């Protein structure tokens, strides 16, 4: 039947994996160390760092936002709630007219609905929204997943700088505004 070779080689694969897990440094250090050899990351004690572009949570840079409502309109889930008002700001030059600016009263993102698609971040014309790789914000109550303006601004501290691009790219590197 030719039964033996394939089966034995299969045993060799699993046996080899077991030995590599127990002795990750091979013959150099024959002390069993499976915690290092296994691929498991023991989550609450050790954490893997997600890449800088990972879509963890959305951060808001309040000063840039003009309540133009583009993000709220484009969101596929309609999970962004914006309320704003117009107020008068001092003129840019001395002796000029006071200008009307939009100020936001309420800017909530409901992360229970959010699909983490990033359309709001792409569409914002004023670069007020940024992605942050933070993912540990689960709550015992669903209502607490509605992040309001202040909480979204707190996430700005966790937004990493944009990474430089590969050689040959003509894309312009954007900058994260200082908070």
């Amino acid at each position, binding site marked *: 039947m030719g039964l033996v070779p394939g089966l034995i080689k299969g045993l060799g694969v699993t046996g080899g994996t077991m030995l590599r897990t127990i002795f990750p440094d091979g013959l150099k250090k024959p002390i069993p160390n499976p915690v290092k050899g296994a691929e498991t990351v023991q989550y609450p004690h050790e954490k893997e760092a997600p890449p800088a*572009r*990972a879509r963890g949570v959305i951060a808001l840079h309040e000063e840039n936002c003009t309540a133009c409502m583009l993000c709220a309109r*484009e969101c596929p889930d309609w999970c962004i709630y914006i309320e704003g008002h117009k107020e008068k700001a001092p003129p840019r030059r001395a002796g000029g007219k006071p200008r009307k600016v939009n100020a936001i009263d309420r800017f909530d993102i409901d992360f229970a609905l959010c699909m983490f698609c990033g359309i709001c971040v792409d*569409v914002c014309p004023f670069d007020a929204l940024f992605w942050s790789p933070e993912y540990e914000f689960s709550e015992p109550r669903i209502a607490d997943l509605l992040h309001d303006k202040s909480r979204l601004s707190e996430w700005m501290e966790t937004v990493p700088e944009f*990474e430089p*691009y*590969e050689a*040959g790219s*003509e894309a312009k590197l954007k900058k994260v505004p200082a908070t």
Partner: protein
Amino acid sequence: MRMERAVTEAALSNRAQLSYIAAQAADARVNVELETEGMTLNIGPQHPATHGTLRIIAKLDGEQVVAVDPVMGYMHRGYEKLAEVRTYPQVTTLINRIDWVGSFANEVPFILAAERLMEVEAPPRAQWIRTILFEMSRIANITLFLGDMGLQVGAVTPAFFAFRDREHVLNLIEAVTGGRFHPNFDRIGGLKDDLPAGWITETRRVMKKMRQYCDEIETLVEGNEIFQARTRGIGVIPAHIGLSYGLSGANIRGSGVDWDVRRDSPCGMVHNETDWKVWTHPDGDSFARFWVRLQETRESTRIIDQLIDNIPSGPIMAKVPRIIKVPAGEAYVETENPLGVMGYYVISKGELVPYRVKIRSASFNNISITPWLLKGVYVPDIITILGSLYFILGDIDR
């Protein structure tokens, strides 16, 4: 408890019981010599073997199948209807979730159809990177299949190896797009963003690892005599029957048909800039389909290796307006997705939202052959054959 049972039994008269049994016998097959009765076995919708919520109603005679009736639709999410009221970027987000294992590949034919309607072509750099990510999603998808096929047949270890090694590819995809399973990266006219520094070296390292994984699976699963005894000669699909049922992808290539949309009708992707080969196997059984997919994964790693060596420099996005209104018209684009041939038929009336998006998904057609294929087969072979046809429920039900 005892009282309750007595009451229930007395409630059904003898006449009612007899007519119930008669109805069952009329539905089942009765073997006159041995006086056996056929049995209807419901595999699914909750079942470890069907990749999701597929229901297979199997009428059995002992351990042999007499007739099979697949019932799909338990996961229908109404994509085609949703697409009628979503803008193009929003539709791109949604269709990521059709075949959730090889996710980037779902976006590509839709974007290509929209680009054809807008008469815009993505710049070469975008086309290259699009192809690379497309092949990566194929690797992510098929490595899962390779491990999962072992699981269907009874070996639990290959599945763990599959998830372990798939992580590397998913990390690569996450480093570029920000999402492991739902990249949402393709845009009409190009891609959302460019590659981060260091990605190309990382990709070369990961491709070597994936080839090592393929070798491991070859030794552990494909070379295993028990696996071969379980899959050789099981579920043979002759080429003409497969084509008439609309099979595509590795399923039809496992029956010897030399057809690959990447080579024969490429559209917007640059596979033919590299030196690659289409793998076919003449047998048409479950082993052939497994073998073809294993070779395809290796071939994808080689394609990616060749592509990342020559990515042209340039812009990543063509000049498209910020708010996209696709001009009126209709376009159909199909691509060789990991599961088979996937096509999008987009009809636009010149508005922000498409008028109609018809999704031709690969797994829907792949499943349609099961009533024909599963006649006369043993119960364990149902699972082997379904595993070798490899469908994802999101792709069947959309």
